């Protein structure tokens, strides 16, 4: 099959950026979308043009490195699929695709499709953890965790930190990311001592990073490659409300 790609090219943060058109022939339906970019990059290199910069690593949909917007949708059209696991059989022959980086104030573009997502790391640093020094842990089975809670915590913990939720949100909010971490840890007995400080600190950091507010569009859940539910945002809001009323903890 053949595809036409309009790829966002931006030499650096100071560059204005523009779309460049590339036609790629001999695409196999079994190729992943990133493999098409690989092939295109090899062609660009052969023509002595600059290859397209994009983040990628595991190519199994778990590291969260890759991410780009395809025809307006983060990670492309396939449900619950990162762009590295998106296969060309999803698209019709002759498809015309517009490829852009995540666009959000908190994720500045570094080059082409590569953005800086360090704000996510700072959100975790602000409180997305359980304080448990190495060596201080009690026997693992001394605290039973109901299977229902453990499973729900795992649903939230499945977040890969790719940033698609932010890219999909009209407000560029990081609520789904923060809610997933706060819920993962807040659902477990081990996470209770810091439950209130965690949500308050993470929300404060989220505002400081320039992420927008949540206005319940639900775009984040639709774009999330791990299908993390916005129910967790409700949980975060409830925990946040309780925490600010109860302050100090």
């Amino acid at each position, binding site marked *: 099959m053949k595809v036409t790609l309009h790829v966002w090219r931006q030499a650096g943060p100071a560059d204005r950026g523009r779309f460049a058109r590339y036609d790629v022939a001999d695409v*196999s339906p*079994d*190729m992943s979308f990133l*493999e098409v970019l*690989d*092939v295109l990059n*090899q062609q660009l*290199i052969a023509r002595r043009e*600059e*290859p397209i*910069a994009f983040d990628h*690593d*595991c*190519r*199994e949909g*778990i*590291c*969260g*490195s890759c991410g780009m917007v395809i025809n307006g949708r983060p990670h492309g059209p*396939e449900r619950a*699929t990162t762009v590295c*696991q998106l*296969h060309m*059989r999803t698209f019709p022959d002759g498809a015309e695709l517009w490829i852009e980086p995540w666009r959000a104030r908190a994720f500045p573009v*570094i*080059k082409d499709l590569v953005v800086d*997502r*360090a704000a*996510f*790391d700072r959100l*975790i*640093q*602000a409180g*997305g*953890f*359980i*304080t*448990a*020094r*190495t*060596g*201080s*842990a*009690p*026997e*693992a*089975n001394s605290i*039973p*965790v*109901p*299977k229902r809670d*453990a499973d729900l*915590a*795992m649903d939230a*913990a*499945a977040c*890969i*930190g790719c940033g698609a939720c932010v890219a999909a949100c009209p407000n560029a909010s990081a609520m789904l990311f923060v809610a997933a971490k706060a819920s993962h*840890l807040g659902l477990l007995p*081990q996470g209770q001592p810091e439950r209130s400080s965690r949500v308050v600190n993470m929300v404060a950091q989220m505002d400081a990073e320039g992420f927008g507010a949540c206005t319940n569009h639900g775009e984040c859940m639709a774009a999330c490659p791990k299908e993390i539910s916005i129910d967790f945002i409700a949980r975060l809001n409830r925990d946040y409300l309780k925490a600010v009323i109860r302050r100090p903890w």
Partner: protein
Amino acid sequence: MELRAKIPSGPLADKWERHRSEIKLVNPANKLKHEIIVVGSGLAGASAAASLAELGYRVSCFCFQDSPRRAHSIAAQGGINAAKNYQNDGDSVFRLFYDTIKGGDFRAREANVYRLAQVSASIIDQCVAQGVPFAREYGGMLANRSFGGVQVSRTFYARGQTGQQLLLGAYQALSRQIGLGKVTMHPRAEMLDVVVVDGRARGIIVRDLVSGAVSAHAADAVVLATGGYANVYYLSTNAKGCNVTAIWRAHKRGAAFANPGFTQIHPTCIPVTGHHQAKLTLMSESLRNDGRIWVPKAPGDTRAPGDIPESERDYYLERLYPSYGNLAPRDIASRRAKEVCDEGRGVGPGGNGVYLEFRDAIARLGRPVIAERYGNLFEMYERITAEDPFERPMRIFPAPHYTMGGLWVDYNLMTTVDGLYAIGEANFSDHGANRLGASALMQGLADGYFILPYTIGDYLAQMKLDRLDTAHPAFRQAEADTGERVRRLLAVNGRKSVDAFHRELGRIMWDRCGMSRNGAGLTAAIEQVCGLREEFWRDVYVGGKGEDLNQALEHAGRVADFLEFAELMCHDALQREESCGCHFREEYQTPEGEAQRDDARFSYVAAWEYAGAGRAPVLHPEPLAFETVHLVQRSYK
């Protein structure tokens, strides 16, 4: 070069406890004065950096990914072993130790492996305390499953994302220390050299992958947690960025490289579909708990799997290994898959696959149970192949996955360069010639949480601290060398892309130094690799600038190192004139086609010393002393 393994004396079971009580401690005030560099932020690196910072050391951590959370440990699926005996099925520290030593075909150190089994239980405690959402039973207790090469159920798991959850636990502990200002994190930074001053590792040279700036960083000790080198094969289950550069540069600065030829080819991966393919995808070994592996009895049978009656199927693992069946260790399962495919009985396009079928398990347990156990793996398989494993058996084939070889380390995890440590997959220490499933996560976290934080203190306590900064001539020199190398890569300006060289190298290594090897092939491979390396430096085209985010340049540096390293790998496979674990030399096999060890000649760790460019590497054997276990021919029949 002198190899001193520093194994403590005394009974096996007491060695670690005694050693821990006897090693020197650094007092809390002095810990604040010590700077430690940790390179890599996977399970080993993140857990070590967090634990060292908790102890009070000043830590700098480097990773090439944009965030420490993306290290390749994240992709581990199946689980982590621990000798908890929660299933009451007779597990014990000794059994985990014995399974691991035997699984590694008796090519690992007893003392290291025993220690690994001893600390395994603490790892689970630690991870649960951090909030790792392991699978649980209805009563709230932790659940377990079985993995290959063992007969107990000792594997803890978090769906098919155990590596992700364990890494997030370590990453969160690390993030907490970053937030507290105890760890300085350097993401998108690639280590390109180790700086050695007066025989001690005192820092590293790093290239900032965004700006291209090369900088020097000084410390009192350097810890390499930079993973394995399976990408030498080009196609592997490793992430695209995984590379040998850090440990190879350390090797060139004096760190011995042990058993580089021991590479694990994992039996259950999705077969290659086309020449565009950039990487291979693993299907967790846990699938072999309930899946049955088979091929048609007759070569060239192209009927759909559902049309092949029971009597015309060969469940070859169950036939050959009745007591372990589909849970035979990885090296054996891989080799047997290759064998049936070589006989023309492979299935799928090109005949490079075998079936892994869940029909019987679905009939026995019901679809919901199977969906709960393996749902995400089935989805991943369907996404890639467009086939539904509930309806049609999976097709799988072996692929490079893990490397048991790595930097040689002593019992304290220190390399042959003082103050330079290697942990996790980057060292060679615990898996011998074959790693058992769910043991990599165990080893990475054992090294990072519970071993290195103690043993590094022993070195620092005895070290006379001479303040050293990056103005020292050794740093200036290493920095200049690194910058020069980057310029050289760009200056070749030839005709062939970096990727083309990498693919070619991968083809040579897969054919000659892969699942089975022979003397003539390895000799030829050494020549081919040298030729390709020469061509690389004559004809590679990188493009772009050094002072920019330049992914082709990153790749070029890594491939240049793979091209040097691959030669050592072949030398190692060539000198070991026996078969053991993953290392299958066609000349040395039993009549049943099993690996034929030669304990009289090869019961050693092959540690290699770098002898300079264009010179043959020098072999230093470290004899393996087995005081507790008896060496037997591994049998899973």
